[in-house]
């Protein structure tokens, strides 16, 4: 799943949270990251903290991921389709288990950050990574720039952003040139924000197109598929 130093994109801290606007690829990143952590022999738990828009979420893939041995915590049953925070108490317990790697997929852009803020005191009592996924080909519908997003996220969560995840892509039309120009934009943004790029995330099928970027690369087997896309793991749409 990785190259150039397998596992070196894995956070050494007990908690890692992925945040960023809808469509930057957080859910794909969180799933692939969690599976890589599991494959590296670390006890890992993936938490669906996306309650703002009840579509294309980690919880949708819970059963398939459980078959691969990954523990997923998400709102149960019918509550998963609600747009209000129906959050199981296991989330807080997972965050406090320091020996386990807890991965949080925080959806719903800065509004999702408010929810993450509810767990901030538990997260901040240990060490953590809070990483913002960035896709330069996905304009933030809120119109906020990255600096403003960072300010809002940090203000609303009370946590520090510790890095970016570069995930430049144009869905099914992604070409090598997009990855290259996208990387330039993300690394420039990281520099201006004074943040590191924690890792580069790219779809497995684009592995050959990922340039030498000087940061670890997470190759993702894409899970979030539309019903008409071949290889869908979902027998039926939700």
């Amino acid at each position: 799943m990785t190259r150039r130093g397998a596992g070196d994109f894995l956070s050494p801290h007990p908690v890692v949270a992925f945040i960023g606007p809808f469509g930057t690829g957080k859910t794909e990143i969180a799933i692939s990251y969690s599976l890589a952590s599991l494959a590296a022999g670390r006890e890992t738990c993936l938490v669906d903290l996306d309650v703002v828009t009840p579509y294309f979420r980690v919880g949708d893939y819970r059963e398939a991921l459980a078959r691969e041995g990954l523990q997923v915590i998400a709102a149960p049953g019918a509550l998963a389709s609600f747009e209000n925070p129906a959050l199981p108490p296991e989330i807080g317990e997972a965050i406090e288990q320091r020996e386990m790697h807890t991965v949080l997929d925080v959806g719903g852009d800065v509004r999702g950050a408010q929810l993450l803020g509810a767990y901030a005191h538990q997260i901040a009592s240990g060490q953590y990574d809070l990483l913002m996924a960035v896709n330069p080909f996905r304009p933030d519908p809120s119109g906020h720039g990255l600096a403003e997003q960072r300010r809002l996220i940090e203000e609303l969560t009370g946590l520090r952003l510790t890095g970016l995840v570069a995930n430049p892509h144009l869905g099914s039309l992604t070409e090598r040139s997009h990855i290259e120009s996208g990387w330039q934009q993300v690394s420039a943004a990281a520099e201006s924000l004074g943040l590191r790029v924690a890792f580069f995330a790219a779809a497995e099928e684009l592995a050959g197109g990922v340039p030498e970027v000087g940061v670890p690369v997470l190759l993702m087997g894409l899970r979030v598929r539309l019903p008409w896309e071949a290889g869908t793991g979902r027998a039926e749409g939700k």
Partner: protein
Amino acid sequence: MTSIPRGTRILMRGNEAVAQAAIDAGCRAFFGYPITPQNQVPDYFARHMPEVGGVFLQAESEVAAINMVYGAAAAGTRVMTASSSPGISLKQEGISYLAQSELPCVVLNIMRGGSGLGNIAPAQADYFQSVKGGGHGDYRTLVLAPWSVQELYNLTREAFDIADRYRNPVLILGDALLGQMMEPITIPEEVVDPARLPRKTWATDGAKDRPRNIINSLYIEEPQLEKVNLRIDARYEEAARKEVRVAEEHLEGARLAVVAYGTAARVAVTAIEEARSGGMRVGLLRPIALYPFPSDEIASLADRVDAILVAELSLGQLVEDVRLVVAGRCPVHLLGRSGGVVITPADMVEALRGLAGEDRG
């Protein structure tokens, strides 16, 4: 002009593309009320209408919103509302009034599972409501059914021109998948400046130095009401000649045809490609306009193929109109799912294999 990158491919969510398209078409008023799965539409308007000096207003209800649309349309403004199935039901009275008052507007329905409150998953069960009137009276809505984020943008933009041309509400019919999914899209450079649109001489926008205009749907005298209705009906006849839109895939030499729109048509393309790789001669006819209905195109298709499979995320609505125009020329079968369950490509391949087997037998 809004701050979105133009002339270059970006990723956009379907609901956002609709709102951007409306602004680019010169729409300067949006009235709505929240409901999943279309909430990104009002959200986008709320953020971006102020950039172009337009009005975004969250009304106290769907009924209030559609009547605000009536007011803005009467004043000559390009105006839009959006909702999802139950909310669109609430708007039907207002849509009837808009049609009878010969007022242009654009209405977006991001359909969800029904009937009743249903659920928030994708469905196409508002087909009858959309193409048969929905509200009371002798009116029609012109209905466009996009199948991608790019088409959501393109057709929404065009819908404002169509609405003005026929002085009638135009309905954009999407579903929870189309509204929520992200796809690459190119937003064109050029946008409509509403100040440069042809003047609406019928609008109630101030009668200084001209005779007053009246916008009304109440006609007490029977012959007078019939006269208005016949005038409106003549526009539907014109639309039936000029606004039929279909797309075809692999129909040349096909023995079987799928007829489907929107999300069901996307599933059909995957299924048809798989079936064709197995040697089956099958193609797709996709109505892009659902009203006016592509009657001639489907009748002529029925003359060329052995059977038609209608695929819809509803339990037998589109298939009724298809059977009506096929009129026994060939068998017409239904593959329908309901309640937010989406037809899978595997379901459709199996249905096609069944039809091909029947054909051989």
